[in-house]
């Protein structure tokens, strides 16, 4: 009888619970990558997570870490307060596109500009998931949503905002990257980027930002496979993957 070796398991930083996420939603994958990074550095019992408003609000339900729940868009300010009190504890925010790139633009820009030693996980799925698929600041030109029924009109609504590029222009940003989780290769790259974003903070090198392109099949009106294809076909061409700033070397 061959002895079986366990080669894959749930990260310690994740609780053994079911999530509320829809089928095909990639929050679960991204949660796992963040948990992997905390496991890798052995920081689960030190880390403070700051939850935002939207589908990611239940952070404390899935991560086995200390969590503060922030008002909509204010997670970077709340995280700033926590980090200043506990400079030796890793602090991260986990925010969606409406939260970070619309109502919270002021907080994210100034937190990055102060060079706060934080890790920010930004999940860009081009829509407001929790509230039912309204137009987001990252919705693509022509994208039909519940508040842009004829498609996003650049003349009326402006352009999808490119946060990884925008934040890379600030002196306080040490690391800014955009990744996706639509293919195994991209998942591995995203995992490395998230790990590096935590290392940047642990090394005291400054503000670290990871934008993750993700699906929202429910609000896109697609099945999970179609949604995943949209990431490659429509999102990545507008939001190119890559490292936009790396001042950590």
């Amino acid at each position: 009888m061959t002895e079986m070796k366990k080669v894959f398991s749930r990260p310690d930083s994740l609780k053994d619970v079911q999530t509320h996420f829809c089928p095909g939603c990639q929050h679960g994958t991204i949660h796992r990558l963040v948990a992997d990074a905390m496991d890798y550095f052995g920081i689960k019992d030190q880390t403070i997570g700051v939850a935002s408003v939207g589908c990611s609000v239940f952070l404390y339900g899935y991560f086995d870490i200390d969590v503060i729940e922030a008002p909509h868009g204010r997670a970077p300010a709340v995280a700033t307060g926590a980090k200043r009190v506990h400079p030796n504890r890793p602090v991260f925010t986990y925010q969606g596109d409406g939260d970070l790139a619309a109502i919270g633009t002021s907080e994210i820009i100034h937190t990055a500009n102060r060079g706060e030693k934080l890790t920010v996980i930004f999940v860009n799925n081009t829509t407001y998931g929790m509230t039912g698929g309204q137009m987001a600041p990252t919705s693509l030109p022509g994208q039909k949503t519940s508040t842009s029924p004829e498609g996003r009109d650049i003349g009326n609504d402006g352009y999808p905002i490119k946060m990884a590029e925008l934040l890379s222009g600030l002196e306080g940003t040490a690391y800014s990257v955009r990744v996706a989780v639509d293919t195994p290769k991209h998942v591995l790259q995203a995992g490395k980027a998230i790990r590096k974003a935590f290392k940047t903070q642990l090394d005291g090198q400054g503000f670290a930002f990871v934008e993750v392109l993700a699906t929202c099949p429910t609000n896109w009106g697609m099945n999970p496979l179609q949604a995943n294809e949209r990431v490659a076909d429509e999102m990545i061409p507008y939001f190119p993957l890559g490292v936009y700033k790396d001042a950590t070397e």
Partner: protein
Amino acid sequence: MEEGLTKRLFVKGNEAVAMGALEAGCRYYFGYPITPQSDIPEYISREMPKLGGQFIQAESEVASINMLLGASASGARAMTSSSSPGISLKQEGISYMSGSECPGLIVNICRSGPGLGGIDASQADYFQSVKGGGHGGYHIIVLAPDSVQEMYDMAMLAFDLSDRYRVPAMILADAVIGQMKEGLTPHPYVAPDDLETKDWALIGDGKAGEQKIVKSLYLGDGELEAHNNRLHAKYAVMQAKEVRYEGVDLDDAELVITAYGSTARIAKTAVRLAREQGMKVGLLRPITLFPFPKAAFKEHTSAGQKVLCFELNNGQMVDDVRLAVPGTDVSFYGRAPGAGSLPTPEEFLDQIRNHYEA
């Protein structure tokens, strides 16, 4: 005790409240410039680094109150300060702090409104302060100092009450109390015996096996109702135990004058002048605006005394007085925000005489 802490000083109210907060162990300040409170961040930006604390001039009032939320959830004594328009912006964060039971000090050096209004003294933020201010039906502790000394003392009291109940505390003053200079005798902070370790907060080197969550979202069946009932039970305990007020010449008073903060200073002089003229009047000065001294009003109007309320607004606290003593003859005299000058003791004295003789 710091050297020179008992020496008599001549300082502004804004400086006194900052001094009291630092002496009480506040080591985190987050704020944004606005007249007439900017002396507070200016003082703290200078003094906080000497104490090893942190001062952040935030990008907005919204950010500063949320930094306060984060620092408070992390177990620290922390504060912010602003003036009326900035306090409006902070209401979102104050509601979240209330919902997630984060203590902390918010100083409001009121100016006139509505809107941009003006920079002169006003008491028009009374309703906003004592009735919740933000969404959701909560209360915060509201203290109303009437002197530079009380600005110092109440910074300490505000932190103690706020920590004891896990309810945010506001010091509600105005441009007069904040900007005037008078004598201050600083004294060392002594922590009350009953203050417990903040084992609910994200303190120490980690969670040590037990996950700490600071949140205001309750979606489970009945959870939020139970949470709100628990918050209101705390308010009821505060109402029973934490009311503070000052009484002047109330024992034989036939007319009870009431006013708080800057207006109470003027009223005190007016009451003294009235006594000199043989009128039996006294002053009931609420120090805690929430919890409101309802029982004191009942006690001092139980023999049919009339009440006259002075405010620097068009009538706000007077509503709470009337709720406290239904059936009592309660009159109001106020000056609208933007009056440009303060009422004089003689102006109040005329009102006292009219109501006393009526």
